[in-house]
């Protein structure tokens, strides 16, 4: 399977990473090298094999559904690039 410029651009868009037009060919080349390496997996007979979901056979623990933490607005916002009046601030999203 070969990745072309258009696919590289689509993947970059899905990943929300801006890639310059001029870098798309290089990126597509790199994808193809990596995917070429991954293609080896097609040699393996996986008939009837379950995909791994958990590496150690343990059940996820349950806990009571109740508040155990909170009321730390200032600390939650302390690393925000832009916080105003107790909120995270972003460019306008609704006209």
């Amino acid at each position, binding site marked *: 399977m070969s990745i072309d410029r258009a696919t590289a651009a689509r993947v970059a868009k899905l990943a929300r990473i801006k890639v310059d037009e001029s870098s798309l060919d290089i990126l597509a080349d790199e994808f193809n090298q*990596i995917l070429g390496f991954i293609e080896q997996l097609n040699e393996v007979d996986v008939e009837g094999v379950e995909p791994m979901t958990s590496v150690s056979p343990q059940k996820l623990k349950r806990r009571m559904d109740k508040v155990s933490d909170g009321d730390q607005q200032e600390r939650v916002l302390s690393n925000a690039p832009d916080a105003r009046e107790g909120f995270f601030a972003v460019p306008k999203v609704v006209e």
Partner: protein
Amino acid sequence: MDGYNTWTIAEARDNLKAREITSEEITLSCISAIDGADALGAFVHKTPDEAVVQARSADLLLKQGDAPSLCGIPLGIKDLFACEGVPTQAASKILNGFKPEYESTVTKNLKNAGAVTLGKVNMDEFAMGSSNETSVYGNAVNPWKFLDKALTPGGSSGGSASAVAADLCLAAIGTDTGGSIRQPAAFTGIVGIKPTYGRCSRWGIVAFASSLDQAGPMCKSVRDAAIMLEAMCGFDQKDSTSSENPVPNFEAMLTGNIKNKIIGIPREYRLDGMSPQIESLWKDGADMLRSAGAEVVDISLPHTKYALPAYYVIAPAEASSNLARYDGVRFGRRANLNAGESITEMYERSRSEGFGNEVQRRVMIGTYVLSAGFYDAYYNRARKVRSLIKKDFEDVFAAGIDAILTPTTPSAAFELGKLETADPVEMYLNDVFTVTVNLAGLPGISVPAGLNSEGLPLGLQLIGRPWEEGDLMNIAHTLESATGFVEKPVKWW
């Protein structure tokens, strides 16, 4: 120089308990070694003032006589661990200025055990790399040298490895997703263990690939690794994959008795064109274990060849999900926006400016293999192959194998810059012997085993049964005593 920084944890602990020395003296000795070692690029955020305060309280506890296991021991902390109020940026520009409001469970456990933290050490960006060359801080450098060449300390825990090998601290913590503790340990002549998946809480460790990531100690001896691992691990409510299995006294399990243990030598790890020096080191290691009373047998792990390709689907897939949180909104760096730029442009430019090339590449590969139409062909197939790789190990353990001996890396430390012209896959091959262990969730340890003809350290890896780190470290300890490796790099920095 007083040289306390060259001590092992065990040496320092015994001297501290005997009141022969104070933690403050050992800590100051490390601080001065760190200040003289900027050329190594190992420590990237130094916290000497905090360290001295911690050392003084450790001394108080020691005086009272109820000191915990790591009381007064100065450590280096990989930049992947959140430490409250201390810059934590996973060696990435996108986390520039980030100071967590909370502490990772592993560092909290270490602090509760009395450890002194000297600061953050270098690594590959988001732990993605095998040479510590993808860091926003610049390269970490190996204290070992061949001729005048600057060598990589390995990666991603390159700063931890360099700091321990150069005696800037008594030990350090690293993390290992595909070999990031064991490969740098091998490249720098130190001991590094990745415990069983679930041993250490991942809470507060910047996530790379959550089903593979584990924290572990990087130390000057197997005994130190046993002492430190016990302090680091244990059940944590904040990580649903952390295990409730009891944590034994690992140090007490270092008996040196490995009689009747069965050690497997997997034939698939004998690569075409493998260096004869690594081959003979491997054989010597097997002979040493045999002389110590173990039985050594040939085994087969038939799906070994497919571990790296499976890893390079699963790890980027998980990374693409985990790294979605870096959006320039809640924390980290946001791109400077021009008037009229939308929120999508904010995401795209923040991520493109903030992530380095290797990170961008892996996020996008992960996005691709998870995207509609390719999910089954790539991601699901890789997870099936992962099941087969795990089964390979289960089969040999069921057949009575106690541990598996392999080389840690296919080569010794290489020159910095060597991979610049290589394609991405070439760097990935560094992890060919280590990555199987992460995919199967097993414990693996690298022990320094000798020097090559260029005078550079080489490591041997032992892989153990799940939750049997104590047994594994006992075998590693026996191997360590047999190799008698005591060499240190000649100081040039």
